[in-house]
């Protein structure tokens, strides 16, 4: 595989510009507040999908438990917002005012110790990223050092996501249980439920996503990225060349976890609650599907894949409330059967060659397409 010589070549820049224009200009202008907020929600999953491109597409590590990290990030933010919403004044009808309502229903009379740091915003921001990364480090060290990989790793991560769900639901006094943490209102006094707040949060989300994409491209095009690809293709050869394979695997797994956690926190802010239904096996697998539809080797494809699948989900379910799951299933089967490289593959095999012929652009990096799937996806997305 031939990689670009520097961190961003002309094609990457062009692709980045297209994504930025789409997210920061086209969507805000073309969509009303409600739809824009929906796109914002979808984009939070794109953080996870970009992380999966790094882990799975480049590192060859398929994680079916990314919901765990998405959830940890989301719950971190939700705990902060819930504490702010549970002021003594707001909760004076409770037996113990000043603690979240679900704790009061479960006969808790004081705030559990691990909730304490979430009284403060800056520590919360650190914990949102650090806790999932610490978990990823722990899981990664435990498994990669023992050379657990491939399908075994996928199964274990899936089990971890299931365990997390059971734990959250079972410990409802501490976590809100099945209902999740709901009725979140303000962020440092700023009402996040208003339309203007949703608008601002959309842009914060979009800018963060572009930042994450840049970070992913930087890693991909560094020497580290090339080692990742080498590891994916022939793990033993890398090991015999003197590299510590496990450390690289742990790193990329942690990176994916951090991306997912940021997405989770932004999800909580934009949707206004967090629940265990976003942590378990089903959402984790859905996120892998977003990544697969986009093309697992394409960072930009991950964003378009996420948008396309979620758009299809929303519009199909609005039009056919009783049949939509079948339509969505059909879509996935079609993508997997006919376009194994996802949207990025369609772009590379069909669209780009004809454009190249017209503009006589030389393709520098044929293995990382997905660039201007923008137009295709945008056409599909509205």
């Amino acid at each position: 595989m031939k990689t670009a010589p520097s961190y961003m070549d002309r094609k990457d820049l062009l692709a980045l510009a297209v994504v930025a224009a789409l997210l920061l200009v086209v969507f805000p202008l073309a969509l009303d507040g409600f739809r824009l907020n929906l796109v914002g929600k979808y984009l939070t999953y794109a953080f996870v999908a970009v992380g999966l491109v790094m882990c799975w597409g480049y590192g060859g590590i398929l994680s079916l438990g990314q919901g765990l990290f998405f959830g940890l990030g989301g719950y971190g933010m939700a705990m902060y917002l819930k504490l702010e919403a549970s002021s003594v004044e707001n909760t004076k009808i409770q037996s113990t005012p000043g603690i979240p309502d679900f704790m009061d229903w479960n006969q808790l009379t004081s705030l559990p110790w691990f909730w304490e740091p979430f009284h403060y915003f800056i520590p919360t921001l650190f914990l949102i990223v650090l806790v999932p990364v610490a978990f990823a480090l722990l899981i990664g060290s435990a498994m990669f050092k023992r050379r657990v990989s491939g399908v075994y790793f996928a199964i274990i991560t899936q089990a971890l996501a299931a365990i997390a769900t059971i734990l959250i639901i079972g410990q409802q006094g501490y976590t809100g249980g099945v209902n999740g943490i709901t009725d979140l209102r303000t962020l440092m006094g700023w009402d996040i439920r208003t339309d203007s707040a949703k608008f601002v949060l959309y842009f914060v989300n979009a800018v963060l996503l572009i930042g994450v994409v840049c970070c992913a491209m930087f890693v991909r095009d560094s020497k580290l990225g090339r080692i990742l690809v080498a590891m994916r293709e022939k793990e033993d050869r890398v090991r015999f060349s003197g590299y510590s394979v496990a450390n690289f695997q742990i790193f990329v797994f942690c990176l994916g976890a951090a991306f997912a956690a940021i997405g989770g926190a932004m999800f909580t802010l934009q949707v206004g609650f967090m629940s265990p239904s976003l942590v378990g096996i089903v959402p984790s697998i859905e996120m892998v599907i977003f990544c697969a539809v986009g093309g697992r080797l394409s960072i930009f494809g991950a964003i378009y894949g996420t948008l396309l699948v979620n758009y299809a989900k929303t519009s199909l379910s609005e039009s056919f409330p009783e049949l939509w799951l079948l339509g969505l299933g059909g879509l996935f089967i079609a993508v997997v059967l006919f376009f194994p490289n996802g949207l990025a593959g369609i772009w590379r095999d069909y669209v780009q060659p004809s454009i190249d012929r017209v503009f006589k652009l030389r393709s520098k990096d044929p293995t990382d397409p997905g660039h201007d799937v923008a137009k295709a996806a945008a056409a599909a997305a509205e």
Partner: protein
Amino acid sequence: MAEHDEAGHSRLRRQILMGMAAAPLAGLLPKTAFAQAPATSAVNTTGLAVTDTEVTVGILHSATGTMAISETGSIQAEKLAIEQINAMGGVLGRKIKFIQEDGASDWPTFAEKAKKLLVQDKVAAIMGCWTSASRKAVLPVIEQYNGMLYYPTFYEGLEQSKNVIYTGQEATQQILESLNWVVKEKGAKTFYFIGSDYIWPRTSNKIARKHIENFMKGTKVVGEEYFPLGHTQFNSVINKLKLTKPDVIFTDVVGGSNVAFYKQLKAAGINLDKQILMTISVTEDEIDGIGGENIAGAYSCMKYFQSLDNPNNKEFVAAFKKMWGEKTVIGDVTQAAYLGPWLWKMTVEKAGSFDVDKIAAASDGIEFTKAPEGYVKIHANHHLWSKTRVGLAQKDGQFKVVYESPDLIEPNPFPKGYQ
């Protein structure tokens, strides 16, 4: 989407007209029903989806996913009520059109769809939600955009909102009278609680425990256990039941776990004809899955049973089966869902407006004399006054009503002394 089957429509209309001839329904007809409809600008000042001939409402339940089996009955009941109201001339001279959305058993999806119904479709009211989790997800959306939600499920209480009418019973309405009955009639002294592990069973059992320990003499709780949702291995707790021999097994196990629980009880030789078992989570819908022969002899505490013997209910059951098939069964929540569109219609007509603020204010005191459960009235706290009934499960999957509270029970979502 919301398409009306014209043939079914007129069939229904004919049937309702016949029903009206049989039982003097005319008194129920609003006086304005056939009068000139009031101007849209007068009855809709907040930009809801109301035209001169139509008003749009939303139906928001899970048509797919694990909850679909429970929520389908509610969807059917709401569609039936809407058809019947339209056949009688609609609301303030406007036919009800509905937009159905699928919550897909997923709480964020419920919130998304509720927002879509309110912001984009501007529906005048939403009939919907089933689980507490879905209601908790939808509630902030409904309050923020000032919508109106009619919520059908019996639930744990601890909630009250200007924007919600709770047409099911809150926990104290369902539990207290039934406990009094079993202690008085059956001489029960000891209770063993078994529930699914989430907010509703935990809160219900907390209320039941307080009632048993503080408000009744000589009774006590000898065990309390919770199992995760979907749990299917109840052998350990059944062994404990055999050891402690409680007078009453009090259960709020939900969903698919019920099937395993009752089959294992039977297999373990616990005969429900001799052992009293009281459940607050099994309706006719659940028995469909459990099998009548596995649960016959158990007592269920609800406000409605399909077998209720009153003219309202006979008409309702006949209309429901005509629309949805002879084999459908009607559980407590299905009936509560049927009340939603009717209560909304009557409130709109009392308020003379579709405006949510006016409906919220006018809801207190709305009476529905044709309710299948008999008679209901909206309390100032937006819950319903309703009766508690105890049904004895039969082999054919129906319940025989063995007790009915003499009076309507006041809803009390924040019960003092039970927290």
